[in-house]
């Protein structure tokens, strides 16, 4: 806040009595000790007592610690606050508006918990945090310039918002107009930096004192980690970071204890009613999207599905339900259902309806897929946190039972209620339903494999071939498909035996390009730390060109990641859109010298992604155009990844 204070001379007496937790930071080890005490939140009182080092520091500050700012830097206390939250990494691009906390993090905080990861763009930093969370289940913190950096980060924050992923963003800002440095730092200042992302963050704050900062950060962490998860934003005043710690009214600074909020469970009356509906259904179908937060969610979903022998349609925002299970079904399963249960489904309308982008006047046609009278039940925590501006809540779908609750937290009681509601005389029919599902699945599997065989030897390489050549090389690893940008016609989820939650992490959420590579790197970092789990990324070309600089971060921080490119040399979705409109308007699409309509191809010149990756310290090969050469190239890349490095194979592919 008050930059004018930053030059004040030390008031030793005030200083000695003013700091409860941060203390005078006699050495980096002070911070480390403080963290150890603070990382077990359950055992902490609501305000942390001073550590032994702090007490020593308060009463006996070595002369050497008396520095030019006249006391302990406010940003040292900020680091103490951050350390209580056990945040492992800080992917960030450096910026002067947070130079003070940057200095504290690496020098006072010892660059651990969090460890600074050098990232070349704020969008990549947030996408890394996004991918990391989906494996680790813990959020990361990122710092940015509150104006220019936050504008770069905004797209990735929107993705995190839509994908219900917690990320803690702090933006440096120089609020005091009378004292901020003129020129660039003034361009980099705003009244309210958080306004930029307010529509797609769960909460934000602008702390004006260090005590306020401590409360804001713990509150932000808590809010972001309460389902539905989401990104949060803290404005970090440059003056506040730089000024020495002061006390107000004799009160010492304290750090509030973080206690996780338990997620909301569906109201029991509604749960029982839903269970009755499901138990008496002839053809119940369960539709899941972000239902499972981890392995526990997958296990619970299997229990529910098996209790009902109900088929499960996984919309794929996470790996919710094992693809190898006999009840795993395609989206058409809802067409014949009499009861549909939706669990954390992003777009429930689209489950029940289809939209054909081709009406007589070039306007889409809406059609209902389900039978009249089909009963619909939803459980979604997102209903607790809907905002007005961005339309991520999708079209309105009327339902019969609606629970604003967390699906995974509600599953245990729903399973119990379903088991209790199944009448004895229905048990045989339910078992028969399971047998029919088994037969249908076997037939579907053979059909899918035969579909994959079409154009097997084609050049450019078919997406089914790309996916299965990759599978052949990774199947013996403890693998994790961390991202899949571009679109490979859903082959991985149709052909790979996805069973574990970490086998598939879902897409970006908001479908903003630039997610794939950095999110894959973030997830690969978490997989590396788990103990060498093998990360694979199927990477679209257009997506990579937004955030290709993220590759350097993977090489710098030795993050092993296999990237196989789905390089169809275009923005293919848009390419089809312009073609569609051209045909509709009875015009031949102008191609220029490219293969797709002008403005949609990425060719002439072709981008050499292998060279791009090599230039940033990756092992790389390609472009591979001959399908026979693909397997051997991926095999080499896998060996590199197993040695701890990132590797990329560029492949020229069919469009989809």
């Amino acid at each position, binding site marked *: 806040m008050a930059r004018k204070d930053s030059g004040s001379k030390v008031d030793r007496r005030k200083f000695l009595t003013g700091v409860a937790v941060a203390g005078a930071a006699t050495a980096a080890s002070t911070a480390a000790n403080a963290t150890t005490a603070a990382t077990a939140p359950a055992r902490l009182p609501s305000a942390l007592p001073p550590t032994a080092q702090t007490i020593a520091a308060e009463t006996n500050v070595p002369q050497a610690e008396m520095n030019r700012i006249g006391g302990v830097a406010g940003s040292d206390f900020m680091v103490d606050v951050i350390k209580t939250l056990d945040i492992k990494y800080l992917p960030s691009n450096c910026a002067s508006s947070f130079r003070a906390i940057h200095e504290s993090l690496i020098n006072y905080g010892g660059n651990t918990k969090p460890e600074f990861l050098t990232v070349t763009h704020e969008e990549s930093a947030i996408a890394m945090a996004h991918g990391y969370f989906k494996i680790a289940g813990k959020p990361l913190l990122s710092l940015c310039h509150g104006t220019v950096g936050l504008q770069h980060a905004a797209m990735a924050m929107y993705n995190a918002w839509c994908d219900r992923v917690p990320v803690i963003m702090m933006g440096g800002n120089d609020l005091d107009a009378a004292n901020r440095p003129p020129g660039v730092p003034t361009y980099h200042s705003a009244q309210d930096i958080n306004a930029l992302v307010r529509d797609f963050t769960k909460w934000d704050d602008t702390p004006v004192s260090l005590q306020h900062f401590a409360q804001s950060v713990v509150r932000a962490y808590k809010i972001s980690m309460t389902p539905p998860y989401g990104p949060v934003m803290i404005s970090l005043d440059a003056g506040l970071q730089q000024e020495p710690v002061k006390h107000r009214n004799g009160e010492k600074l304290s750090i509030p204890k973080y206690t996780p909020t338990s997620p909301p469970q569906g109201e029991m009356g509604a749960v029982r009613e839903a269970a009755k509906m499901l138990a008496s259904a002839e053809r119940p179908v369960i539709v899941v999207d972000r239902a499972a937060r981890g392995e526990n969610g997958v296990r619970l979903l299997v229990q529910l599905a098996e209790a009902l022998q109900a088929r499960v349609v996984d919309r794929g925002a996470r790996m919710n339900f094992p693809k190898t299970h006999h009840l795993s079904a395609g989206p058409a399963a809802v067409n014949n259902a009499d009861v549909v249960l939706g669990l954390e489904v992003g777009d429930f309308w689209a489950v029940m309806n289809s939209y*054909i*982008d*081709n*009406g*007589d006047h070039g306007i889409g*046609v809406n059609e209902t897929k389900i039978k009249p009278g089909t009963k619909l039940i939803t459980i979604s925590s997102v209903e607790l946190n809907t905002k007005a501006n961005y339309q991520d809540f999708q079209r309105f779908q009327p339902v019969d039972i609606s629970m604003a609750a967390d699906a995974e937290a509600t599953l245990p009681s729903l399973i119990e209620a379903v088991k209790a509601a199944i009448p004895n005389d229905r048990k045989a029919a339910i078992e028969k339903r399971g047998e029919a599902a088994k037969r249908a699945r076997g037939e579907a599997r*053979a059909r899918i*494999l*035969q*579909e*994959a*065989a*079409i*154009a*097997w030897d*084609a050049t*450019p390489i*078919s*997406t089914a*071939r790309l996916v*299965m*050549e990759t*599978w*052949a090389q990774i*199947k013996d690893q403890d693998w994790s498909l961390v991202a899949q940008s571009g*679109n490979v*016609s*859903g082959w991985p989820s*149709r052909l790979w035996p996805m069973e574990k939650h970490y086998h598939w992490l879902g897409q970006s959420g908001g479908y903003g390009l630039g997610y794939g590579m950095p999110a894959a790197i973030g997830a690969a970092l978490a997989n590396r730390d788990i103990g060498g789990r093998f990360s694979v990324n199927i990477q679209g070309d257009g997506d990579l060109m937004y955030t290709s600089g993220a590759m350097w971060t993977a090489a710098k921080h030795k993050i092993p990641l296999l990237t196989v490119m789905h390089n169809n040399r275009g923005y*293919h979705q848009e*390419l*089809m859109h312009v*073609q*569609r*409109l*051209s*045909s*509709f308007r*009875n*015009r*031949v*699409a102008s*191609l220029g010298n490219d*293969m*797709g*309509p002008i403005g949609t191809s990425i060719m002439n010149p072709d981008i050499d992604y292998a060279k791009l990756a090599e230039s940033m310290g990756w092992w790389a090969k390609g472009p591979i155009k001959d399908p026979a050469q693909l397997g051997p190239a991926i095999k080499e890349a896998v060996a590199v990844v197993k040695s701890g490095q990132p590797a990329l194979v560029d492949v020229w592919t*069919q*469009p*989809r």
Partner: protein
Amino acid sequence: MIQRMFRVALAALAVSVVLGHGAALAASAEKGKAAFMKYGCWQCHGTQGQGSAITSQGKVLAPDPLPIEGFVAFVRSTNRGMPPYSEKILPNEDLADMHAYLASIPKTKDYKTIPLLNQ
């Protein structure tokens, strides 16, 4: 739906008038491949007409394309997942060549003979 069937029938009638047996025979697979690229069919159907679960809604054009009459009728009259191509923007001759190209694509192997599909 009825409207759609009516259109297909009309278009099929037109095709049998325009494309005599001779026109179909004279069609060139090589020119057809170029036309398949030029008119953007490859975008949603893949360069060999193999299709995609998403962009062609699982429809496979080759091998074994629809008979020429049905093929032409569909392209001219479709009004659902695929945008229609009128004769103004896609001449009959090019369409016949495309059909010849799709007909020239060899049969798909049985997946059981492809080791990667039997892992």
